[in-house]
């Protein structure tokens, strides 16, 4: 599929939903992607199956504080510099790029690299949604190495990280991003084509585009954007279950920083006095309870959306009084495997409960 300028807004909208409350504001990522297409023209989205076994595929994304990312904007040279250095280290050219994380602004990040390098974007990503830390990527879960990894910043600084321990890589990268002013571009988990096919979460980029398009088309036709969203998600096959968990307005909100993350909970009162939903978050939404009963658990997606426009509201933008619908979606199957749940399941986030699938918690068909 050729990615044209007109599809970028759909990708941004779908990626925002897949951020499960995190991933930052995709507006600036959208502007950057549009600027890249403006300069270099449209580019290709290719299926993982079309990769040669020994191709070099590089996940890309930004690491840092969303608040900084809307003030200290990129120079536009970061992605190219990082990938060129990686090519030097690996001794060969990069064949394709992919998002490290489809959720939020990072869903569009590799488009900049793709445009500048003239390579395609592979229709897959490393998380299937957004997660707060780099070692939560499927590649770490499956035992692949994050390094060599290259960080670049707008000032021109470039850092190569080499370590065998992926958690150490995340810590170094996080510290670097702070030292560089709060935001940096990172290329990590360089993959062969075979590894990308075996482990990356396939279809997530086109799923984001389809989901975003469905919301836009429904709005234009004055149809229900939430019905369209659910239908489009299920049709992707990647997110097989989708439910609107709740419809109400925000009546309470607690937020604080713990360990560098925005931690808290939001309480939503149902319209007409019908019950209450509470969502706990750590950048991303982790668990949704309705009148005390759990309705969705990480890694399944929970996204709070404006109930009129179906715009996604990230945890940082939650405000008292907002009128919202809470939408949940089943995570891609690979995230529900036991080895994945150890790193991205409820207990990994300090929730004292084991994972239960969305469709079981809500008595849905197909459970």
């Amino acid at each position, binding site marked *: 599929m050729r990615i044209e300028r007109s599809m970028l807004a759909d990708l941004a909208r779908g990626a925002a939903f897949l951020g499960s409350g995190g991933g930052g504001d995709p*507006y600036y990522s959208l*502007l950057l992607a549009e600027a890249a297409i403006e300069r270099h023209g449209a580019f290709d989205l290719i299926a993982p199956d079309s990769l040669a076994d020994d191709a070099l595929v590089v996940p890309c994304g930004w690491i840092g*504080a*969303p608040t900084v990312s809307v003030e200290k*904007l990129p120079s536009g040279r970061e992605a190219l510099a990082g990938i060129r250095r990686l090519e030097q280290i690996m001794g060969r050219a990069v064949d394709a790029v992919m998002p490290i994380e489809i959720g939020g602004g990072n869903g569009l990040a590799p488009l900049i690299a793709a445009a500048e390098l003239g390579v395609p974007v592979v229709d897959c990503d490393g998380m299937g949604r957004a997660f707060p830390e780099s070692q939560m990527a499927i590649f770490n879960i499956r035992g692949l190495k994050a390094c060599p990894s290259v960080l670049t910043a*707008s000032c021109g600084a470039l850092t190569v990280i080499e370590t065998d321990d992926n958690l150490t890589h995340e810590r170094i990268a996080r510290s670097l991003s702070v030292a560089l002013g709060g935001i940096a571009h990172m290329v990590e988990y360089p993959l062969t084509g075979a590894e990308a096919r075996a482990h990356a979460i396939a279809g997530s980029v086109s799923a984001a585009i389809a989901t975003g398009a469905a919301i836009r088309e429904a709005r234009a036709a004055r149809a229900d954007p939430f019905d369209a969203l659910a239908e489009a998600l299920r049709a992707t096959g990647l997110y097989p279950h989708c439910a609107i968990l709740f419809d109400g307005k925000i*009546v309470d909100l607690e937020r604080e920083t713990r360990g560098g993350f925005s931690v808290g909970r939001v309480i939503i009162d149902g319209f007409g006095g019908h019950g209450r939903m509470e969502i706990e978050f750590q950048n991303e939404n982790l668990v949704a309870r309705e009148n005390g009963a759990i309705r969705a658990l990480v890694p399944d997606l929970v996204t709070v959306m404006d109930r009129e426009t179906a715009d996604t509201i990230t945890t940082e933008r939650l405000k008292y*009084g907002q009128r919202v619908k809470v939408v949940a979606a089943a995570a891609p199957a690979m995230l529900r495997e036991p080895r994945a749940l150890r790193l991205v399941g409820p207990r990994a986030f300090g929730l004292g409960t084991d994972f239960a699938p969305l469709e079981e918690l809500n008595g849905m068909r197909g459970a």
Partner: protein
Amino acid sequence: MRIGVDVGGTNTDAVLIDGLRIVASSKQPTTADVSGGVAAAIRAVLADGAAAPGAVDAVMIGTTHFTNALIERRRLDRVGIIRLASPSGEALPPLTAWPDALARQVGGEIFLLPGGYEVDGREIAPFDEDRVRAAAQACRARGIDRIAVSSAFAPINAAMEDRAAAVIAAEHPAAVVSLSHSIGRLGLIERENGTILNAALSSLAAHVIASFEQALAGLGLSAPLYISQNDGTLISAAEATRHPVLTIGSGPTNSMRGAAFLTGVDDAIVMDVGGTTCDIGVLAKGFPRESSLSIDIGGVRTNFRMPDILAIGLGGGTRIHRDGADLRIGPDSVGFHITQDSYLFGGSTLTASDVAVAAGHADFGDPTRLPPLGAEARDAIWRRIQAMVADGIDRMKTAPGPVPVIAVGGGHFLVGDGLPGVARILRPPHASVANAVGAAIAQVGAQLEQIVDYDAVPREEALAAMRRAAAERVVAAGGAAGSAEIVDMEEIFLSYLPGRSAQVRMKAVGDLADLGPRRGAGPVAMEARHAN
């Protein structure tokens, strides 16, 4: 005594207030030159109130004029655009994502220069005075007299923008300069956009504010002139001439503040029922709850704070559609043609007003012209209208219990008694000029935004320092010392940054310090360093 004026799209409303008492009000058609309608409205209230011009202490005007100029792209200046942030930011130059026509009209020269700050206050790059000077010279040489200056993290540290302004003043003294830290909040693109729009309004602002002052002088008024901002607080005429973009959204805010004043209730749902829509807002501590959505002005994305308004398709002119057993309320409306099209006024279109009068909830027009509806049909329509109103209230309120509702606007009778979730309905007199009232009773405001590290300064100390700074800004903007109070505070902890860093926004308001009449020319020239 004060005079409040609201210049709307159709009407210019004015009120004369003496202390807490509304002495007179007037509704005049808005004129193309704006000041004609303003003069007519003020003349009318002075006459009706039998007040001498010398008895007026202050005049406050709220207008949509500058919004319209940006939407219609009329009389906009060409702007020289300076951004201090390089090497950061070059991937998204100024005017990115602007509608082409507007960018071509407003975009003069663009200069991406080194500078700006990191989140922790370090410089991204040092200020380069030579290059700023060269940019000013280039603007002067090309006849560009309006300059917009933005820099990274300016709301946190304005020093580089101030330095740039000084260099430009020395090199190009005729230039009118807009600085981003005075215009907007965090979000470089949105704030820079607002700054460029502000610069583009410079000539128009000077002309409109001057024409207001001439209108006042022509009426023998020497009281100071204030202009409403989009958050309902006032800025001086001089400040409004410098920062016209801050005055763009005052209408709905003034309407809600007027509703609060007229009822004495500071926490309520306000329903402003017009001819086509009913705008529902939430008053908290006397101010409208703000929306968190981005505000597009003329197709350009900004982050100005506007009231959170839910507009439902129900107004006095809303058409009632009956198709057999099918009943549909609007959303189409006869709008201001109600005085021709509705049954009450001799037409043949069934409107919400017709049903309201038929059901005994209002009394105007000629009820003998109403069609024979039948009690059952009439009551079914009324019940459906009430359900729409109740649903709108339910969607906006945040407390579970019943809330007070203030109904204003020409169609306020559509908000019936006995609605679920409503503690009481307040229907104040002068409801149709609530927006002019809001302008008249407005206070002076100031906002402050900082990123604070609670590991460096303990939270209580940091917040106390910010409160003092906000109060000082209120005084600088013309507020009475000691009257300043903090009416809103927002604290967002910053994930992904070390320590306990938070972005804190505070809003403070105070009473106007100086209400004494001035002899001779001119408004109070307050140097207000106002930051949103």
